[in-house]
């Protein structure tokens, strides 16, 4: 029930679109430049992408809430997952990743990307390390982390497999760490 509602919301929300190749090439150029700047230290590249994504996420959530008209708070983390996959990804990237692999406590799930608009044409550098170290689309993890933080959820998001590395699927693991309670400002005295 909630799931079909989320899909409808994702379908109905109209967003301006840009050419997919523009996105692919821009993002690709950025990752390639980061690899160059960090001298192919892919761990640092991953961190940097995550940080960039985080800064995007912090602001993107506002756009998401405004455009999708979903001001009602999600009642549980499962609903949040639905909204991320079927509304968030749908309106911003026009894809709908599959939600699977819930843990029994309902605090961790995986998003499986059947298609990844960032990764068209991409082949990781063949230096023998990129295949094991670089998470090419790591910016998405940061986006989710940043966006959810703004709606009082602290999560950890990371990729666990990527077709670019030769895995069968592209999978991102998202774990809820805690709901952030409203914190009172420190006392003056």
């Amino acid at each position, binding site marked *: 029930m909630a799931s079909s509602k989320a899909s409808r919301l994702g379908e109905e929300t109209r967003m301006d679109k840009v050419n997919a190749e523009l996105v692919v090439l821009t993002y690709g150029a950025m990752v390639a430049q980061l690899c160059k700047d960090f001298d192919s230290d892919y761990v640092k590249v991953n961190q940097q992408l995550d940080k960039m994504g985080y800064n995007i996420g912090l602001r993107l959530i506002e756009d998401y809430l405004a455009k999708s008209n979903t001001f009602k708070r999600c009642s549980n983390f499962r609903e949040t997952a639905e909204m991320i996959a079927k509304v968030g990804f749908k309106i911003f990237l026009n894809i709908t990743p599959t939600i699977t692999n819930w843990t029994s406590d309902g605090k961790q799930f995986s998003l499986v990307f059947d298609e990844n608009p960032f990764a068209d044409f991409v*082949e990781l550098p063949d230096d023998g390390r990129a295949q094991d170290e670089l998470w090419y689309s790591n910016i998405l993890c940061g986006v989710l982390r940043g966006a959810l933080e703004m709606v009082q959820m602290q999560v950890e998001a990371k990729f666990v497999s990527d077709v670019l590395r030769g895995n069968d699927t592209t999978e991102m693991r998202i774990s809820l760490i805690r709901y952030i309670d409203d914190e009172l400002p420190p006392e003056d005295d």
Partner: protein
Amino acid sequence: MSYYFAIIGTQDNPLFEYEFGTSKQGGDGQSRFTEQAHHLNQFVLHSSLDIVEEVQWMNGQLYMKVIDKFFTNYISCFMTGGNVKFLLLHQPPQTEEAIKNFFNEVYENYVKAIMSPFYKVNMEVRSPVFRQRVAAAGRKYL
């Protein structure tokens, strides 16, 4: 019959090479060049680059058909819009159509290969996927 295919960059620098044999008429797709021919092929192929420059403005086509021959070795050429040359060394009994199809398929895959953000212009094409696709195109048409 054996083929030698090479991609030559804009600075006349080699980007990619691949040797294969025919898969038509029961061929097994293995090249049958002799030990010496390997080096000779490279030489023959590159020596035709001057002719490419002569014929490239003759007709507005990317595919320039057979442009040069050295005894029984014929060179067919296909030039991309970005001035990258695809050269195929082959022996006479070969239809232009088959080679054209081969070039077109390679071209399509070449464009995909160089769209990868980690590829830089005039860099050697090392993608194993591309190599497989060239092999597949060779099997299909030649």
